[in-house]
């Protein structure tokens, strides 16, 4: 029998449509069908100035806007050859780890809800709300933050921001214990996740899986540690790896990542350097408001950047960062003008979704929902 699941199905996390060929309760073949959210962001980017692309990148993956911002600005900065001041780099790391916490909390809540543990959702969203409030505090937006700029940050962090983050980081570890109390030792949770939707390391690599989906299968790679960017080499953290390759292994990887991210947030707060938040690059970075009112030069630069953008030397770069879902990469080609010739996003979810048939075929139909939840897909990123 062929069974259609989605695109409007609550456990498909958006608009994923899955065609299931089933024999009784056993899945014989599974075919994901995507593209319902395709908005042509890559094409849109080609018609925008470099700085105008930043808000578009938020909208790709609404659970990790800052990671997308970071990846894009790092790629443009690499094209320009810009040096970023340390405070901006540390702020970027701090915000990225908060984003990871935000994203993993949504994943944990919805994943548990898919499997039937409704309570966890409420606990996770309690802390997520706090993270979103911090985003609002720093950027004025809860979700579509667009806080990073080419050359630095949009704004100085407001007064009281670091205290608030510090308070959150202080109690968050206990909250993770709470989630784990509800799930990790829970017999129902174990039965639904252990040994379910297995993925071997060879298959995971061959299918291009990355992030916790890959690390849950025992492959020890994390771009933050192995190919550091934005000053991650200054931070001390562990990369959780699990060997089993099942839903439970991927769950454990992400929960332990939550703890590590919290540690990185604390380290970033402790060692936050003083100094400017924007690179010294007139013509690329918008001048301060104050200078614009007093200096002719600054006013001219402001006018030029807004009206005609800034030209980027011809060339191409591929910049990858470790997003909560895996390797997020931006490939940007410049032809020397103020608009990118081509912007391509390597979506971690797109590759991760390809592992779904390997996980589900031969398993039970009820486990499909667990498998979809465990690869943590965001359809906005898949379809772009």
């Amino acid at each position: 029998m062929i069974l259609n699941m989605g695109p409007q199905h609550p456990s498909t996390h958006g608009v994923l449509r899955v065609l299931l060929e089933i024999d009784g309760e056993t899945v014989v073949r599974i075919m994901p069908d995507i593209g319902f959210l395709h908005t042509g962001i890559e094409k849109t980017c080609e018609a925008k100035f470099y700085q105008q692309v930043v808000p578009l990148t938020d909208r790709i993956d609404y659970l990790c806007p800052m990671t997308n911002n970071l990846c894009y600005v790092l790629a443009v900065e690499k094209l320009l050859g810009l040096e970023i001041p340390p405070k901006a780099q540390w702020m970027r790391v701090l915000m990225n780890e908060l984003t990871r916490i935000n994203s993993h909390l949504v994943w944990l809540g919805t994943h548990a809800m898919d499997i039937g543990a409704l309570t966890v959702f409420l606990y996770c969203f309690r802390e997520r709300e706090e993270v979103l409030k911090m985003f609002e505090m720093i950027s004025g937006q809860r979700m579509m933050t667009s806080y990073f700029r080419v050359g630095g940050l949009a704004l100085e962090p407001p007064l009281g921001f670091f205290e608030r983050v510090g308070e959150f980081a202080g109690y968050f570890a206990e909250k993770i214990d709470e989630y784990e109390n509800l799930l990790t030792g829970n017999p129902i949770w174990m039965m639904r996740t252990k040994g379910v939707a297995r993925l071997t390391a060879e298959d995971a690599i061959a299918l291009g899986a990355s992030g916790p989906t890959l690390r849950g299968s025992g492959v020890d790679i994390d771009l933050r540690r192995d190919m550091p960017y934005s000053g991650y080499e200054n931070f001390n953290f562990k990369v959780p790896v699990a060997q089993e390759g099942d839903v439970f292994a991927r769950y454990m990887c992400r929960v332990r990542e939550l703890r590590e991210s919290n540690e990185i947030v604390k380290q970033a707060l402790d060692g936050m350097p003083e100094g400017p938040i924007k690179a010294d690059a007139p013509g690329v970075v918008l001048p301060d408001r104050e200078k614009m009112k007093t200096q002719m030069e600054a006013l001219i630069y402001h006018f030029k950047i807004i009206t005609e953008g800034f030209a980027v030397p011809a060339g191409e770069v591929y910049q990858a960062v470790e997003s909560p879902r895996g390797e997020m990469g931006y490939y940007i080609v410049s032809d020397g003008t103020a608009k990118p010739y081509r912007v391509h996003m390597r979506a971690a979810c797109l590759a991760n979704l390809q592992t779904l048939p390997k996980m589900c075929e031969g398993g039970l139909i009820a486990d499909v929902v667990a498998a979809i939840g465990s690869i943590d897909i965001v359809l906005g990123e898949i379809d772009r």
Partner: protein
Amino acid sequence: MALAPAITDLERLKGHPAVGRLLEWNPATVTGVKFDRDEMTIYVDRANIREACALLRDDAECAFNFLSDITCVDWYPAEPRFEVIYHLLSIPKKERVRLKVRLDSASPAVESLTSVWPGANYFEREVFDLFGIRFTGHPYLRRLLMPEDWEGHPLRKDYPVEGYR
């Protein structure tokens, strides 16, 4: 920080393991190299891309065992019009390399990598969908993001931003 000029001299980049390995296997495979902004690009002859990738994946010194991405750039109206771009990652060596294949607009087709990495499946379907590049030997080359009955390939440069009216 000033940008260093790109190095495109094959002699100077022979030392790179991937370039060295490909030259050793078949010197005609490498049609050009570029080292720019700390990133290595190798232009590969279109007839050999699948063998070249299999070679780089299996060679112990290169070990480019992970296919990060496949995408394409349209250089319309220049010829060869298309560049298909492969980003490879070596998980053991923590290295990246970019392979490029140039295709002209008369026959935009290249061999599929699905037999080397099954994960190439979606990437190639996406490139087929948005650029109209055919991947020979692909098991299921159908549109991925656009509707089945869509006309044209939106990411081509001669495709208007507002779509055909």
